C-alpha cells in the first residue's frame, strides 16, 4: 500500500494549516468491499498463525538496520497505515490508523477494521502503551511520530520498513508476508491480483479501447489530477493500461501525487471518461457549474463518474486496488 502522505492529510484536517501547499491530503475511502476476502479471511487468522508459525521467534533486520525480534505468532499487532497488507496476509491489527480521533480513517477498509479502536497517526507513545501491542510495524520512520525508536521498541519489538519499500505496495505486501511467515499468502494475493487485472484489462480493451481517462480529486475548492503512478492513477494507467488524458500525460517525469489543475486546463481536457473523486459537495458543485465543464468530452458523452470520497481511490494496496478495479469494472463495463 502506497503511503499517501498521512501527515499532510492529518494536519490539513486537524489544523487546516495546509490548504495551500499543493500536495495535499488524501482522506477518504472506502467502499464496502465484498470480495477482497476471497484470498483473505481475517477470521481464520488467529488459528492460522498458531498452526503455521507456531515455531519460535526470529530475529530480522528492519529497513533502518535495527535488529528486531519477531514473536513466533504476534497477536496484538499495531500496523498503522499498513492495515491493508496486514489484512491481505490474513492478520488483524488491534488498532487502526486515524487522524483526529477517527475524523479520518481508511474508510475503504471499514468492513474489516470496523470498530477497532483508533490510534492517532502520530502514534503517541502512551496510546501505544495503552493498546499494549506485542509487535509494531510501520511503513517508515516518520510514522514513529511521537518519540524515538527506542521508546517504541521498549514497549514491543518495532519493525520499520525502509521508506522505499513502504511506498511500493507490492514490496510492502511481500515484506509483510515474510515478516509474519506468510509469504505464501502475500504471493497468492499478488498473483490473484495480476490475474484480475489481466481479466479486466481485456474487457476494458473491448469496451473502452483508446478512450482517454482522467481521475480528478475535488476538495476544498481545488481540483487535483491524480498522477499516473499513485493510488487509483497507478491502477488505471499502470495496471489497467487505460489511455491517459492530456492533463495527466503532460505531467512532468516525476510528478507530485496530486497535481492541481487550473480551470483553463479543464477547458483543454480531452478525457472521454472522467472520474471525479468527491472530496466535498461544494467543490463538485463549483466545478460542474463552470462554463468549461460542458466542453469536456466526458461531459458531452455523459461519461462522468462520481466516486464517493470514502472509496479506495486515493489509496494503494491490495485491498485498495482491488476495490478500485471493481468500481472501474462496474462503471465502465457492466453498465
Amino acid at each position, binding site marked *: 500500500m502506497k503511503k499517501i502522505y498521512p501527515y499532510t492529510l492529518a494536519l490539513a484536517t486537524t489544523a487546516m494549516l*495546509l490548504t495551500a501547499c499543493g500536495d495535499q491530503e488524501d482522506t477518504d475511502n472506502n467502499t464496502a468491499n465484498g470480495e477482497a476476502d476471497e484470498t483473505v479471511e481475517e477470521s481464520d487468522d488467529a488459528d492460522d498463525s498458531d498452526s503455521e508459525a507456531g515455531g519460535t521467534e526470529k530475529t530480522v533486520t528492519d529497513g533502518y538496520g535495527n535488529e528486531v525480534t519477531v514473536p513466533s505468532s504476534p497477536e496484538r499487532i499495531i500496523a498503522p497505515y499498513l492495515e491493508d497488507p496486514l489484512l491481505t496476509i490474513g492478520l488483524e491489527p488491534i488498532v487502526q490508523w486515524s487522524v483526529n480521533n477517527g475524523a479520518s480513517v481508511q474508510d475503504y477498509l471499514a468492513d474489516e477494521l470496523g470498530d477497532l479502536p483508533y490510534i492517532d497517526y502520530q502514534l*503517541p507513545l502512551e496510546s501505544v502503551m495503552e493498546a499494549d501491542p506485542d509487535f509494531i510495524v510501520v511503513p517508515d*520512520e516518520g510514522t514513529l*511520530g511521537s*518519540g524515538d*525508536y527506542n*521508546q517504541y521498541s521498549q514497549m514491543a519489538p518495532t519493525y520499520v520498513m525502509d521508506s522505499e519499500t513502504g511506498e511500493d505496495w507490492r514490496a510492502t505486501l511481500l515484506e509483510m508476508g515474510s515478516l509474519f511467515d506468510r509469504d505464501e499468502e502475500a504471493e497468492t494475493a499478488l498473483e490473484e491480483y495480476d490475474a484480475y487485472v489481466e481479466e479486466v484489462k481485456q474487457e476494458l480493451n473491448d469496451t473502452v479501447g483508446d478512450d482517454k481517462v482522467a481521475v480528478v480529486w475535488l476538495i476544498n475548492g481545488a481540483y487535483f489530477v491524480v498522477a499516473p503512478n499513485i493510488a487509483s492513477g497507478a491502477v488505471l494507467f499502470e495496471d489497467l493500461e487505460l489511455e491517459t488524458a492530456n492533463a495527466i500525460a503532460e505531467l512532468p517525469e516525476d510528478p507530485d501525487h496530486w497535481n492541481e489543475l487550473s480551470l483553463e486546463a479543464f477547458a483543454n481536457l480531452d478525457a472521454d471518461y472522467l472520474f471525479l473523486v468527491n472530496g466535498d459537495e461544494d467543490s463538485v458543485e463549483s466545478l460542474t457549474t463552470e462554463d468549461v465543464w460542458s466542453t469536456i468530452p466526458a461531459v458531452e458523452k455523459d461519461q462522468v463518474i462520481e466516486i464517493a470520497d470514502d472509496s479506495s481511490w486515493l489509496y494503494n494496496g491490495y485491498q485498495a486496488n482491488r476495490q478500485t478495479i471493481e468500481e472501474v469494472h462496474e462503471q465502465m463495463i457492466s453498465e
Partner: protein
Amino acid sequence: MKRKPIIVFSILVVFIVLVLLISLQSGTFQMTPAEAFKTIIGQGSDQQELVLFEFRLPRMVLAILIGAGLAVSGAILQSISRNDLADPGILGINAGAGFAVVLFIYLFQGSYQNLGGSVYILPMFAFLGALTAAALIYSLAYKKGITPVRLVLVGIGINAGFSALLIIMQLRMSPNDFMQATVWLSGNIWGANWSSVLAILPWIAILIPLVIRQANTLNVMRIGDESAVGVGISLERSRLLLLFLAVALAGASVAAGGAIAFLGLVAPHIARRIVGPRHQLMIPTAALIGSLILLFADYIARNMLAPSEIPVGIVVAIIGAPYFLYLLIKTP
C-alpha cells in the same frame, strides 16, 4: 510590590514541583496518583515505569530547561536593548536557529525523530543559526551604537526574512518532512527522551550562571548607555558578550523544542513585576517562571486533545499573544 526573594523562589519551586507531579500522573495511559507514587518510589509495574520515567519525565525536564533558557535569553535581550518588546522569537533569533536546524535536517536527510548522535550536534547548529541572525540584526541596527527601537525593528525584519527562507526550504522537502518541520517549528517537545535532555542540559546549566554573574552589568545597561559608560563599563564589549549568551541560550532551546514564541517575552516581565528589576533576582525568577509556564503549557498541550497533541508552542502563544498585545498598547 517586591517580595522577599527566598519566599518567591520557594513558591515558584513548589508550583513547579506541583505541576510536575500533576503532569506526571496524567496522560493517555491511565495511572492513579497512588500508582504514580508507587512507581516513583520504585514499586510500579514495568509498563508504569516506562511511561513515567522514559516517556513523561524526560519531556518535563526538557520543558523546564527550555523554559528557563528562553526566559533568560529574553531577559537579557530586553535589558541590553532596553526594550520590553524584545524576545528571541520576535527578534528573529529563534527563526535563525530554526532555519539552521531545518537546513541541517534537509542537508543530512535525517528524519526528525531518529537523528541519532546528531541530537548533540543539533544545538551547535541551532546556535550557529541564531548567531548568524543576531550578527545580522546587530550589524544592520548598528549606527554609532545601537538604539533599542532600531534593534527591535531590524529584528522583526530579520525574523520575516528567515521565516521566508524557511518556507522556501520547506517547499523543497518531501511532504512528510514538510509536515514534520511545520509542527516542529511551531514548537513542540514530543519525542523528548533522555538524550535530548542531555543535549541541552550543559548549555542551560553553564550559561545561566554566567548570565547571573553579569547581573550588575545588566542592571546598569538597563538604566541607559550613558550611565553605563559613566560607571566604566565597556559598553559594546559587554553588550556583545551578553548578546552572545542570549543567543546561545535561545539557540540551544530552539534546537530542543522548536521555535516557542512569546515565552522569552512574558517570563521576564512577570519576573520584574514580582521581584523588581535587579537582575540578580530577576534572572533566576524569570528562569523559574519560564520553566513553570512551559511545564504547564506542555501539560495542556498533552491533555487537551488527548490522545493527539497540540504543539506546546501554540499553547504558549495563546497565552503569550494577548500579553504581548497588552504590552504593545501600554508601551508609549
